[in-house]
């Protein structure tokens, strides 16, 4: 039955998340950005509430919530500030892969879940900007080269790598900094998501034994595909949270700001843009929810719907955050107001998480090949 009603449990989670977002996360966002470091109190509170382990399984003391619940909670948290949420330690995006590899990684559970050691996820599918080579030699692999900038690299204790080796075989590697030393390139990051530890990894002929292979071949391919699907959905959900924040902030501002003797909201150039922001935000919300529902059902269309949701989220996020700055005028451009940061964070976010046109192209190829959902089904 078509329904847009959240469960009581979801509503309770969202209320907690949103309160934390408004009362703690947003007031600290600027300071965190300036320090390029998260506030410990926030990290502790998020951990205590279980929001760092939404995606982890119960074996890993996680909440193991369905994606449809997770996306609502993440929306609530990112209503406070996307950058802060992206910078949270622990399993990060890798959680969407770890959940399929619990037993294999059991020895790291305490470090990641309790000690909040950080995992960075490195997807080497990108065909530009990275020159990492994974070469198979006898009974080990050699990893050499520099990655693109990725989230949580600066503070990573572990790296989960999804890659095709030189023979075209998909592999998931687990690198432990104490065993497989890597170098983090400092970089010069100024745009946004400055708390989230964006950096490049450099591997100098790192020898990786087969012990570090979590999965390969068909097993790895399936985990990578499912994990990527989940990451896309969870990232798109974060973007909804930021869009909601920007929409509400711009609405409130334009309702009180006066020009030419009246609230600027009364000018249709302003109010219609607010309406369009509201519509776009709702659209992305629904597309994310649909993708999450299908992923929860393990429906074969989930991958395509995740591409669709992420593409629209990126496009709309850029529009909504830009609109918020535009509607605040000069105030939108200065750092006394949060919207300029949100616009910067948004651009960094869409740059990190998949090119829009690639999402669209891949989805389109699936549609033409007949892998689309049956419209009539």
């Amino acid at each position: 039955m078509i329904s847009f009603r959240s469960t009581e449990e979801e509503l309770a989670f969202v209320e907690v998340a949103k309160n934390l977002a408004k009362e703690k996360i947003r007031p600290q966002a600027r300071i965190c950005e300036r320090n390029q470091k998260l506030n410990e109190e926030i990290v502790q509170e998020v951990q205590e509430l279980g929001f760092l382990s939404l995606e982890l399984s119960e074996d890993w003391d996680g909440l193991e919530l369905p994606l449809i619940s997770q996306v609502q909670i993440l929306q609530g948290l990112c209503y406070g500030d996307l950058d802060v949420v992206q910078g949270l330690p622990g399993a990060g995006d890798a959680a969407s892969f770890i959940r399929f590899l619990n037993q294999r990684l059991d020895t790291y559970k305490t470090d990641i879940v309790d000690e909040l050691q950080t995992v960075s996820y490195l997807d080497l599918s990108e065909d530009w900007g990275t020159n990492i080579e994974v070469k198979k030699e006898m009974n080990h692999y050699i990893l050499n080269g520099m990655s693109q900038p990725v989230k949580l690299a600066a503070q990573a204790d572990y790296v989960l790598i999804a890659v095709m080796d030189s023979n075209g075989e998909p592999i998931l590697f687990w690198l432990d900094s104490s065993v497989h030393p890597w170098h983090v390139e400092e970089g010069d990051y100024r745009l946004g998501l400055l708390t989230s530890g964006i950096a490049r990894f450099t591997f100098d002929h790192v020898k990786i034994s087969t012990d570090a292979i979590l999965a390969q071949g068909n097993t790895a391919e399936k985990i990578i595909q499912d994990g990527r699907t989940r990451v896309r959905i969870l990232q798109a959900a974060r973007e909804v949270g930021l869009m909601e924040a920007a929409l509400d902030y711009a609405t409130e501002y334009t309702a009180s700001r006066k020009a030419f003797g009246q609230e600027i909201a009364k000018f249709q150039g302003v109010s219609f843009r607010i309406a369009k922001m509201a519509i776009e935000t709702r659209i992305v919300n629904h597309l994310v929810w649909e993708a999450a529902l299908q992923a929860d059902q393990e429906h074969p269309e989930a991958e395509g719907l995740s591409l669709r949701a992420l593409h629209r989220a990126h496009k709309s996020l850029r529009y909504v955050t830009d609109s918020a700055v535009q509607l605040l005028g000069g105030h939108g451009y200065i750092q006394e107001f949060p919207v300029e940061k949100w616009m910067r964070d948004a651009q960094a976010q869409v740059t990190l998480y998949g090119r829009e046109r690639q999402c669209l192209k891949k989805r389109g190829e699936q549609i033409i090949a007949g892998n689309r959902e049956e419209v009539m089904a």
Partner: protein
Amino acid sequence: MISFQLSEQQKQIKEMTHWFAANEIRPIAMEADRLGKVPDEWLDKVNKMGIHLNTSSFSGGGGEESSRKSKKEREGNRMGVLATEQMAWGCPAITLSLPGAGLGGPPVQSSGTPEQKERFLSIFTKEKPRWGAYALTEPEAGSDASGVKTTATKVDGGYILNGQKIFITNGGRASWVVAFATVDSTLGRAGQRAFVVEKGTPGFSCTKLVKKMGLRANETAELLFEDCFVPDENLLGGEKLYEASSNKPSGFQVAMKTFDSTRPIVASMAIGIARAAYEYTLDLVRQEYPKGGETSALAAEMLAEVEQNIAAARLLTWEAAWKADFGLPNAKEAAMCKAYAGQMSLDVCSKCMELLGPIGLDGHLVEKLFRDVKIFDIFEGTNQIQHLVVARRQYAAYEVRV
């Protein structure tokens, strides 16, 4: 629990209406467009099958039954949008020409007295195709529906109506029309009243059937009221409705309330049209386009965008319908889905025309759909009016009236 899966009943209505659209409507769509009308014998046939367009829900006749479904979860609005998407996929002009109360149904259903509901909604039987209509727009009152100039002068036993209505769907053939008029123009919205004017009433006539860019098979009429006497019993809701809410713009509210249930229906029709264009184009791309290369990559991106936009509009529409089924205020969601679907569907048809290229000009369905769909961004409130409604709801919390 959030779910986008259809219930068994919803699946059934979707499948049934799709079957009807594919087998009965689509085959005559191009010919009906050429003729500028839906063949009478076809209308007679489908009426005998019990297929009606009832814009508050799609049904095999009459809205009474669905409104009696009491304790069970109401799903009439969701069923309505599911069904009309399928029907419009077949052909929107034919769908709008289906017998039934049409846009006149919702105001009678929501504001009529029990006697009026019985009198006006029970005429839609299998014996003969009949239509209802909704007459709000005037030459000088389109988007600003509060500026209605048609007058209603109180006389013994009823009212005398004088004025003109334009752009009335099925207005010429309708057995009755819900017409809006003012009893005192100085009262503004509060002076408005809704009347059910029956065909054949002296002083009531159809003066013209207009020719249009698209939806050519569907009748769009101009109506004239010249000293037209309408009895008290045809005042929608009766005098009591207006007495009970003497401080409120009640007649206007009747008109506006209608939109909250009809806009999702109109949006779903636009979605059906867009989907028809998309599927037609997708089939062509699959069969005719070269595999790989620049053209194929371009098509992939465009089709992915089109499919995404259709899904986005559908989910907005489902939310508006879901809220209506639960009796929750849905003016904002209804305006959102209408605003988005109206504009999106034209864009989809345009993109599909681009993918078809010049051959699309020669006897292809998408060209007709492009002409048909433009009006969906205009009627039942223009795109700009929808944005205004959304913005008003958005600013309501700050007590700023935009």
